């Protein structure tokens, strides 16, 4: 047997596990070792049997009527589980109608920074974007045209002055 495993078996860790006094981390470690090393698994099973044997020697017959109480408690749970769910009923149209004096909207205090809009707004946003681009191109075009015209006027004025 591996010396480390023997050391682990002698550490008392398994006894702590069987008595429920091991920490959660130790429990996870023990379960890992039981899966990995058959010796650890066998030792743990033996300790569990020791506990069971001790309990068997120290057993006391349960009080008469104890099972009846447990049985009725379990029956109660089963009856609750077997209760048929309410059949689905289509709700009446009227129940959706708001009262005459009720406000059409309700106030909602929402911390979210996002908003939801109808899908139809997608086309409006696209049209606004395209029109924006067209206006920008047109503005640049007329600006350049205007600048060219100004230059030509300036040149003509210079020519006229020179002819005079």
């Amino acid at each position: 047997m591996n010396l480390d495993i023997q050391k682990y078996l002698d550490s008392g860790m398994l006894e702590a596990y069987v008595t429920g006094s091991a920490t959660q981390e130790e429990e996870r470690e023990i379960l890992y070792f039981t899966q990995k090393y058959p010796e650890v698994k066998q030792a743990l099973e033996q300790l569990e049997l020791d506990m069971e044997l001790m309990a068997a020697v120290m057993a006391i017959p349960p009080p008469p009527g104890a099972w009846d109480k447990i049985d009725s408690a379990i029956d109660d749970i089963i009856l609750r589980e077997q209760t048929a769910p309410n059949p689905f009923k289509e709700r009446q149209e009227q129940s959706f109608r708001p009262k005459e004096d009720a406000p059409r909207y309700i106030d909602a205090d929402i911390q979210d920074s996002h908003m939801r809009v109808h899908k139809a707004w997608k086309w409006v946003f696209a049209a606004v974007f395209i029109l924006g681009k067209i206006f920008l191109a047109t503005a640049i075009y007329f600006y350049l045209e205007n600048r060219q015209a100004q230059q030509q006027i300036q040149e003509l004025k210079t020519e006229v002055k020179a002819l005079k």
Partner: protein
Amino acid sequence: MNQQIISNSGSSATRAIYDQYAGLLYGYIYEVVKDKQIAEQYLLSVFNDLPQHLQDVLQPGVNTYNRLQQMARRSLNSFFETVPDCPPADNVPARPNKFLSRMNAEQQIVFCNIHYNGKSIGKLAAELDKGEDEIRKILQQAFAAIRRAA
């Protein structure tokens, strides 16, 4: 319908486990609470919860009694906090216990505090001013005594 079959088989499985282990568990709980009426209440509590844990308890390779004892300990958790320290070594068990009588005083105190008073290794180590490894070692020796008495 399936729910009913599962529920009914759960009920009969609970009955089978009760027939086999209720006495063992009742004996253990009585050693902790030292009062038969209180012990019965805890026994009922464990078996009332059992149908929800049947899958876990009846797993292949699992020691059923050990699982029941774990459930009982969880149920007794609040009771453990009210239990005074284990009595002196010569007066540990509520009833004659041939397993405990095979242990020396130190082993009895460690085993009693852990098994019947629900103390963790860390807490007991601090109380007895010993290292956790030492407490585990004493606990292991206590188990060796149990095996010798068997």
